[in-house]
């Protein structure tokens, strides 16, 4: 059973996203909403990772070796300025999108193994990831014209 690998993938994606949210919060502290909401969302990711941890342990006993190229690197540090902020938010968006689809996949597997506890975690968390995507899209939509068309 390969569920453990996807749980590991999602767990690591949540940890990485939490870390990236914190880096973006620090790098763009002069945008107070970015700073505050990225910190808030980092905590959400922490909580997601924490809730996944017991399931990753539970299913790892049945898992074969981890396949190659399971993990991908989506974030390599922050940038500065208006367009830099947009790019950083875009990185966060892609990382959250990875989490979003991984929740779907893990949720499907949870149905398959009839694991009500895991299903409950997925259902609790996937909505919060969806909100992260929405918030990032909302903020980027508002910022894009000024950053790409107006700013020197």
């Amino acid at each position, binding site marked *: 059973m390969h569920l453990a690998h996807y749980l590991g993938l999602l767990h690591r994606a949540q940890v990485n996203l939490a870390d990236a949210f914190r880096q973006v919060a620090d790098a763009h502290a*002069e*945008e*107070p*909403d970015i700073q*505050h*909401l990225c910190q*808030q*969302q980092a905590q959400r990711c922490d909580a997601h990772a924490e809730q996944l941890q017991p399931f990753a342990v539970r299913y790892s006993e049945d898992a074969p070796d981890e396949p190659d190229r399971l993990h991908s690197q989506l974030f390599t540090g922050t940038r500065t300025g*208006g367009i830099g902020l947009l790019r950083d938010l875009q990185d966060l968006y892609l990382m959250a999108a990875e989490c979003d689809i991984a929740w779907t996949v893990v949720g499907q597997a949870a149905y398959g193994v009839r694991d009500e506890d895991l299903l409950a975690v997925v259902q609790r968390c996937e909505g919060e990831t969806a*909100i*992260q995507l*929405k*918030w990032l*899209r*909302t903020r980027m*939509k*508002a910022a894009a*014209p*000024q950053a790409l*068309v*107006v*700013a*020197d």
Partner: protein
Amino acid sequence: MVDRIADPWGERTPYGPGQEWPVRVDRYLADGRTDADVDRWVQSASVLHSNGDALDIAVADGRIVGVRGRAVDRVNRGRVDPKDLYGWQANHNPDRLTRPLVRDGDRLVETDWDTAMGRIVARSKELLDGPGGWGHFGFYTSGQLFLEEYYALGVIGKAGLGTPHMDGNTRLCTATAAAAMKASFGTDGQPGSYTDVDHCDAIALWGHNVAETQTVLWMRMLDRRHGPNPPAMVAVDPRATPVAREADLHLAVRNGTNVALMNGLLREIIRRGWYDRDYVDAHTLGFEEMCRIVDGYPPRRVADICDVPAADVERAAELLGTSQRLLSTVLQGFYQSNQATAAACAVNNLHLIRGMIGRPGAGIYQMNGQPTAQNTRETGADGDLPGLRNWENTAHIAELARLWNVDVDTIPHWAPPTHAMQIFRYAEQGSIKLLWISATNPAVSLPELRRIRQILARPELFVVVQDLFLTETAELADVVLPAATWGEKTGTFTSVDRTVHISDKAVDPPGEAKPDLDIFLDYARRMDFRDRDGQPLIPWTGPQEVFEAWKECSRGRPCDYTGITYDRLRGGSGIQWPCTEEHPDGAERLYTDGQFNTDPDYCETYGHDLATGAEFTESEYRAKEPEGRAFLHAVDYEPSPEVPDDEHPMLLTTGRTVYQFHTRTKTGRAPQLDRAAPDVWVELNPADAARLGITEGDLVGISSARGGIEARARISGIRPGVVFVPFHYGYFDQDPDDRTPRAANELTITAWDPVSKQPLFKVAAVAVAKLADGRGVPSPAPTVGGSAPLADAGVPPTVGGPTARATSGKE
């Protein structure tokens, strides 16, 4: 004779439930004049708070000499707030700007209108030339102009320049009211009527020190409290305000925890069965999800978070849950605090689940802070679109484009209008290059003033300031335009309960000062804005033409003015919107049939996630099938962005006194008001003061991560761990070479609510220390209002004396 400084609320005129509020006509004529000395009375209404009290201006020898309340008006039945009784004297102050000023190096020099406007227009045309030119313009207006002025400004910005960067200082006072009503009911618009005070059996005041912010509304409440079968009263406020002292139950919550309190109250009311299941089923959406959230807030947890007794939470829930006609009012204690929109929506939830909306006595006032804030919102001079339209609804944008005869894509509608704090951020970063500030004073009223001053002083930023006086903001401008004010121009404005008043011109403005409308129209003419057919975009020449144009813009929208004319507004009472063929005399209450403005084609927003501000899409909104039902929104409590720590162990809250308005540009120049509250102070709880070795009148330093100020201490009934500083006091009346930091906003944090984008003025972490002994001289804080000293303090009472003698009586 009554000294309305010593007694801001005057004599009681008690009345019972369902009775008409008795008339009491307040009047103040300066210099011992009587009615016989008055040449004429000119109809107007109050502009020094948001209540919309109707009054007449007394004119003698071409000058304003006093005011009296209008007995015929539904809002105030003759009463006048002390700020309005005395504040008009500022119109005559010798500091008034009488000629335009332009910057010459580090000085502002007098010039003529052609030169001043020429500079603005030249810079505008230069900036507009090239792709993205629109994005270099920012407009920051007010809650103190007239409807016609806002609408003209909105059209200039949205259809002339095509910029989304328009907001008002309404962002600081009333943005959350609008956001909460949109979120719950589908559109902005106060459901209630001031006459709900006449019918209610319980009043809940949520972070609303109405006694000092809207004194006439408080008089109405007090008159009910002094009559037969008085309403019960619950107050939520960290300070011992007059409201908190009058209330049957005062919840002095820790600042920033309103959502936890509201969740706890909703939980109790639901668990005790004090909600209206039929109303919930028929008229709301989201009950189960709301229950899931609030269920996590039992009284003991609320008590821990909010630092109030659990028994008081239960008692408050019982009082609110068992009332039959509940009236709620909400203001800055919720709007300028942590999780503002969510907390204000929770008040709406309380009324929705109890079916306490749309009938006499069952009402909600999501209040405004400023007199004409309602109009800034309605006309789209702030972060809204004209006529309470939805920027995401292409049909709404097409309506505006037809109305203005411009291309749809001229009107910025790719994102919500830019909020004030973001406008200043763009100016800080340099992409906004022209910032036009009208009738407001951000150099005193915005958070983190050192930053705001730095932005306004940037040489690359061309700052236009349009005001009555050389404010702290105007000092930093490149062009200063002298404006006419209330009493010197004609226009209309609308109160919290949707009552529209006219304010007629009584006297000429001083020198070359011009009405704000004339200034905007002059700019439009000089910029030569054209419509799609090459005709002038803005053909208007005066306020009545703009009002007629606005009526068309409002047609079919919740704020429908089409049945109102200038003539109808003259002579009698103000008229509530919507005023249409269906409601020829206006509609007293909204949502009387439980049908809300949530239809997808009609609503003003498709909704947000209240924790982040994430926007929902049209298709997501349609999938909810609201069908006229209201939304119940609930979120979990989260701590403020800034909480006390070892370095800054106390919480700062800011606010107002009854004697001053905004940044004192007017009230600081009315002698009676100025003397009553002449300088800044800081309020401390006696236990905190004792621990810090501070006594009444001592000079105290208050510092945050942003800056520090000095103020004299008032030992008051504020809750432990919290200090209060009034935000009115800036620097215009200090020696320019010797300015002592005293503005509360030197300390406040740059942070805002994720949905309403209203800044958080109520939750800065500060350190407090004694700087010097007061030697027994009390602080300048008034003894009236929230700043009242403790009972045995021996502080001389605040009085107005002979020049404050006003009259009050039936006529």
